[in-house]
């Protein structure tokens, strides 16, 4: 912090012409199609104006025309990196409104799938964050491991990226017989790669210099902006829905809520947000191990449902902890088989809103890193 201030003061004496630069909508590191209008004073960012909507796919309009099971493919396509986690709050909400309890085996499979997908998501997040910093090799190491996770998910659901696997009242299909062993194998590989990347990238001096003390987000600002997930936890605030309001069967597992500690810089900087994701991968591995040990071997994976899913006139905001943070679906039923209104409380959308606040006064290269550390998915931002 001290460094930054002196830097600004020195430069503020020189009055130079401001330059407006357009970053995006198609830019190698805007993680999709975000457009940032940046005002630059030399290399220093003085103002950031995000322009969104380049991937506005009319999700909410579509859902009003779809029946409840038909909505799920569209929900997959919101946060397309962690589809399993997207489906979960939605089906949970519909199940609550219909008053269905799902079998225990389903809950376990859901937990394992969601955690596997969380790992896959964090791998992409850390990998692309490294890519933003200019390190290409860790990116490919992570994608190599992610491929193994996707193989498991594909064997179970049939899809590599968009699964349509969590259905109202259960699952689309039962898992394959070798599922448990494959999960345990892949966890080993994930841990090995994490250790490798920690040495190769995370504790690299250049990487620390680039990310520590950059994009500092204090916890109170984060809360006022409604941030959640690793962005909030990176600021040292341990809010995790899996722990704060345990849904499904998360109260049965022993895991830590990883928070940033300001190990190499100020609390709440880019490095902290990144290390939270690294830590969460390890915690997810732990949860998967416990879930596999406890999971019943046989059982139904689909609750009996009426032929047409109808929801009475009622509404709910159903939330779950997705890898990006607190993801919610506001479902309004009107007695028919189609929702009256389906609103997604998009985590990335809310986390992104903090970007103009925390990127002022840093350099343009830092802006890219701050954006990378927030880990947005434009499908969810624009819906």
């Amino acid at each position: 912090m001290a460094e930054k201030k002196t830097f600004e003061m020195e430069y503020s004496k020189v009055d130079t012409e401001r330059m407006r630069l357009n970053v995006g909508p198609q830019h190698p590191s805007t993680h999709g199609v975000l457009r940032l209008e940046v005002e630059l004073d030399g290399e220093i960012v003085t103002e950031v104006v995000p322009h969104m909507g380049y991937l506005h796919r009319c999700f909410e309009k579509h859902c009003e025309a779809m029946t409840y099971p038909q909505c799920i493919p569209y929900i997959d396509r919101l946060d397309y990196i962690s589809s399993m986690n997207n489906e979960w709050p939605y089906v949970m909400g519909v199940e609550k409104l219909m008053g269905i309890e799902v079998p225990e085996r389903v809950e376990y499979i859901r937990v394992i799938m969601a955690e596997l997908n969380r790992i896959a998501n964090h791998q992409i997040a850390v990998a692309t964050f490294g890519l933003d910093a200019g390190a290409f090799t860790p990116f490919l190491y992570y994608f190599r491991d992610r491929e193994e996770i996707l193989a498991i998910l594909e064997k179970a659901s049939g899809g590599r990226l968009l699964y349509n696997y969590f259905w109202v009242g259960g699952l689309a299909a039962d898992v394959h017989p070798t599922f448990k062993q494959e999960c345990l194998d892949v966890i080993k590989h994930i841990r090995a790669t994490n250790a490798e990347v920690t040495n190769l990238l995370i504790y690299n001096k250049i990487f620390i210099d680039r990310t520590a003390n950059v994009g500092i987000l204090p916890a109170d600002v984060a809360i006022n902006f409604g941030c959640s997930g690793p962005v909030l936890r990176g600021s040292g605030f341990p809010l995790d829905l899996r722990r704060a309001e345990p849904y499904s069967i998360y109260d049965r597992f022993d895991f830590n809520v990883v928070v940033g500690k300001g190990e190499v810089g100020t609390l709440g900087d880019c490095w902290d947000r990144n290390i939270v994701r690294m830590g969460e991968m390890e915690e997810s591995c732990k949860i998967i191990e416990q879930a596999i040990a406890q999971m019943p071997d046989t059982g139904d994976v689909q609750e009996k449902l009426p032929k047409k899913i109808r929801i009475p006139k009622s509404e709910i905001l159903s939330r779950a902890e997705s890898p990006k943070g607190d993801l919610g679906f506001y479902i309004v039923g009107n007695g028919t088989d189609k929702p009256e209104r389906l609103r997604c409380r998009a985590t990335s959308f809310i986390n992104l809103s903090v970007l103009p606040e925390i990127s002022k006064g840093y350099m343009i290269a830092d802006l890219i890193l701050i954006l990378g550390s927030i880990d947005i998915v434009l499908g969810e931002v624009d819906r």
Partner: protein
Amino acid sequence: MANYIKNMWDGVYTVLVGMKITWKHMFMKKVTVQYPDEMYPIPKNARNRLQLYADQCNGCNSCARICPVNCISIETLRVTPNDPENPKVLEDPENDHWLPRKLWVTKYDIDMAKCCYCSLCTTVCPSAAIQHTTDFEYSSYFKEDLLYHFTAMTPETVVSKKQMLEEHQAKEKAAKAAAAAKAAEEQAKAAATASAN
């Protein structure tokens, strides 16, 4: 000063650590699967191109109704009871069990350019007629090639079947009309007799 030297040491040391890792990877076994020559293993339930087994389809239209994308379009025609071909539906492919067909599927088109590969249609299909295959190699130079026509009926047979149905319907109608007329006559007769009485 101590910080200055530590910075230098950290810089050099962590770079060397990183270089060691990449050096190790240079001689590791490569994971690449060389696609056109080798194949990455695909599970059997992978969701790729849709395939209709026309023998098994009974034209119930439930796939078109469930499809969130509406990429399936079906047209059906009632089978006339006295059809000389005596068409049948394969109900159970494993045991080769056939049932009499009630509907001709005259048109079964899937637009693969729109399909979202969600597998909802394969789950609702009562006779497992529509299924995802593991075939993904069907990119094309023209978009029209992605519109798949699955029904095995030629346009001529469709026309003839339509004619047959129309004739049958006309016959039925005539029979109905005759029956109705007869009934009316009888009624009139009965009324006449009643009034006469």
